[in-house]
């Protein structure tokens, strides 16, 4: 069953010279969690605000649970849409306790029933002990969970989360993300979540929808999109990567980093752009297999070294790539090493049948 359907959603803010969103169409099935990804200004937050009813679209239709809440002529106000929204800065009411915050949207429920529901949701997010506290007495992670509990309490037909992890410090984030994921799964609510990095997408979402310049750019399961990004924009959204040109020849791909077996997505094309993740470049000593490369720069990073390498062979062409290697390797600029691609470590950029992509911009 379709829980949320968007048809040709377009939004232009007054005075703006271009659309914040243009013609976005998307169906979200009941219980599904969809991650929205895109660079800043791609229209992610605008999309959420339109669905919540906090903005009125310039054109298009929004259908929630089979009910048209917005089309060209009328727009159901936010309080009658049955949509839950978790704000980026949580927007907890500072003058109310945790309990009152969570019960805020249950004003149509009789008192006893309301108290039960609040306890139930607080249990779900594991905050029963903090019911009497005020928001300013909570840590960032706790505030986050209160905001989630408040949005879930009225049992919204669709839950929207706007960059839920952007205000959390790096140490806290992984644990909380997994916890939120499991809360969302157990609540079983249809969810649209704006996320920033690939790890959030992979751990949270059943499907990922990529926005670019206000348009829906690519939609699919995270694994599919990661393996077959539509273009270099999508490839880069999934983390830092090396984009190189390769020639398809007799069943193999000739890349500047040596030959690779042709992945199915490259069959039938002459040249392709490949995305090679820094962790998928293997560095060996001069006797090892691979193409020769010169170390140009080595930068210390937390947990690994980032190495910039220049390759260049008459057979395979030249390229500058970045690899991530264990810090024990102790490379210095000027060293000559041999590099190759980890088996299965290439993704073909561009949709099948889309023709040759334009040369990647670096």
């Amino acid at each position, binding site marked *: 069953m379709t829980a949320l359907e968007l048809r040709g959603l377009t939004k232009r803010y*007054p005075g703006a010279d271009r659309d914040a969103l243009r013609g976005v169409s998307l169906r979200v099935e009941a219980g599904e969690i969809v991650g929205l990804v895109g660079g800043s200004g791609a229209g992610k937050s605008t999309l959420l605000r339109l669905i*919540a*009813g*906090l903005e009125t679209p310039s054109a298009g239709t929004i259908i929630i649970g089979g009910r048209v809440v917005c089309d060209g002529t009328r727009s159901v*106000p*936010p*309080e*009658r*849409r*049955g*949509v*839950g*929204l978790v*704000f980026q*800065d949580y*927007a907890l*009411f*500072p*003058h109310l306790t945790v309990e009152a915050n969570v019960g*805020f*949207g249950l*004003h*149509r429920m009789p008192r006893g029933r309301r108290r039960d529901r609040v306890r139930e949701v607080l249990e779900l997010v594991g905050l029963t002990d903090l019911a009497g506290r005020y928001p300013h007495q909570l840590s960032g992670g706790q505030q986050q969970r209160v905001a989630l509990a*408040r*949005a879930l309490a*009225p049992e919204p037909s669709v839950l929207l989360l706007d960059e839920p992890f952007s205000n959390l410090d790096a140490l806290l984030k992984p644990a909380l993300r997994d916890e939120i994921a499991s809360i969302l799964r157990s609540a079983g609510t249809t969810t649209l979540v704006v996320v920033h990095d690939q790890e959030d997408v992979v751990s949270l979402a059943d499907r990922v929808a990529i926005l670019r310049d206000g348009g829906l750019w690519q939609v699919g399961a995270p694994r599919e999109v990661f393996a077959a990004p539509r273009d270099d924009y999508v490839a880069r959204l999934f983390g830092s990567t090396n984009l190189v040109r390769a020639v398809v020849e007799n069943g193999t791909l000739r890349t500047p980093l040596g030959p690779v077996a042709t992945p199915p997505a490259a069959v039938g094309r002459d040249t392709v752009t490949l995305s090679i993740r820094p962790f998928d470049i293997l560095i060996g000593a001069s006797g090892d297999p691979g193409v020769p490369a010169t170390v140009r720069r080595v930068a210390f990073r937390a947990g690994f070294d980032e190495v910039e390498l220049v390759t260049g062979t008459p057979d395979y062409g030249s390229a500058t790539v970045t690899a991530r290697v264990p810090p024990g390797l102790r490379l210095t600029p000027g060293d000559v090493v041999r590099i190759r691609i980890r088996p299965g470590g290439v993704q073909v950029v561009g949709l099948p049948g889309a023709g040759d992509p334009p040369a990647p911009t670096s």
Partner: protein
Amino acid sequence: MSAALITLALWVPILMVARGVLAPAGETWAHLARTVLPGYVATSVLLALGACALAIVVGAGTAWLVAACAFPGRRFFEWALVLPLSVPAYVAAYTYAGMLDVAGPVQLAIRSLFPSLADRFLHVQVAGLGVAILIFAGVLYPYVYVAARMSFLRQSRTALEASRVLGRSAAGTFFRVALPLARPALVAGASLVVLEVLNDYGAVKYLGVTTFTTGIFRAWFGLGDLNAAIRLAAFLLLIVFAVLTLERMQRDRRSVSPSAETERPLEPYRLRGWAAAGAVAACAVPVLFGFLIPVAQLGYWAALTAGRVVNAEFLLLLARSFALALGAALLTVVLALVIAYAARLGRSAFVRGLARVAVLGYAVPGAVIAVGVLVPLGALDRALGSAVQAITGVAPGLLIGGTVLALIYAYAVRYLAVAYLPVEAGFERECRGLDEASRCLGVPPLATLRRVGLPLLRGALAGALILVFVDVLKELPLTLVLRPFDFDTLATHAYQLASDERVAESANAALVLIAAGVPAIIGANRLFGRSRP
């Protein structure tokens, strides 16, 4: 919808005046235009520019001293420098006139110090354009001071720190960095000074300076020509809008974006020796002449006359003034809340535009609003009157015009901005996304206002109420025109006594006005120094 109606209603008086330009000019007008109009324009412009220039020198200079330099008494001057704003210009005018009078304390002191002068009566006349400029600058410079200080402390603080790290002295940083960066704030503060000067009636009348405002009163009460008064008011309105437009234009061009607002104090330049003494003197002079001397004089007079003046009638006057001001303040704050919330719900760009326009009422001089209120209320009264007469057979006389209702309506028109801006700022600051969060949880707009808006806005609403209360309490020109027959407020009472050369008696009411103003001004300065129009 109702918000749109409210804003429209608040706009009626101003539209009435604006329409006056189009009405056929009467004979009086032709006469006025030939004889006195050029004089009104020249005097008003000279007065406004003079007061404004002096206010910028005093306001920006003292703001820089207390914001960026360390010297003895700096903490005290930080708040003491806003005090002169609590002294109405007309009170300052007749206080100084009384002090320098032949029988005033200054001449008495001179005569007792120099017995050889005992039989000479210096005829010092506190009157004329120059004196008016001094008096307006003396009580209005805090507008510039507050805006400039905020700018130094907030917007440009990192630039100031950079200038310092690059080796600039206090004076060098002031002229090369602080002043250019503070220009928008200075202009904003200075335009408030100009608007207040244009609004004034009491001080210029007392000092014998004929400006637009006095011209409006003369055309109306002297010549009895309402039409000419409307045209003069329309002319004044034009000048006001020119000032506002200039202010807005330079604001749009500013390229400095405010940096993060931290309350970390700016590391001050330490002044020693003569420099420190000079700073103390520079800050002491405005406080002394703008506040301490007139208040001390008023206090002395009040002590002399209180026995005669403060009686049951005076207390009744006090109660009536306070009740009127409180009523007007309550109404204005409620209207401001409705309009600000409607603008925030933002469904209609129409309401938002109207709100932005209704706020301009504060810029419109009281005399103009008074003229604009009388015309539609007169028409309404005639219509109501004939309706009542048709039904009951008795002519009821004035029902609204000439009553307290008309007065309160006019106050709301003029002071909406004073309430609106803090309320709007309160929504911005306290509610950010919270009202949206409430809506998403299924709570409709009115319930959201009750459950989220009001609890969070308590401080802003109280602040707005106090500001409007004090402004209404000391409002003179509007009250003079629109008050019911034989109805006095503290302001009109004090002004009337002073005009009748009973300055010492007027001190009691004037002191009450100042005493009410001081805490409000200090509180406002601390709460939302920047949000006054």
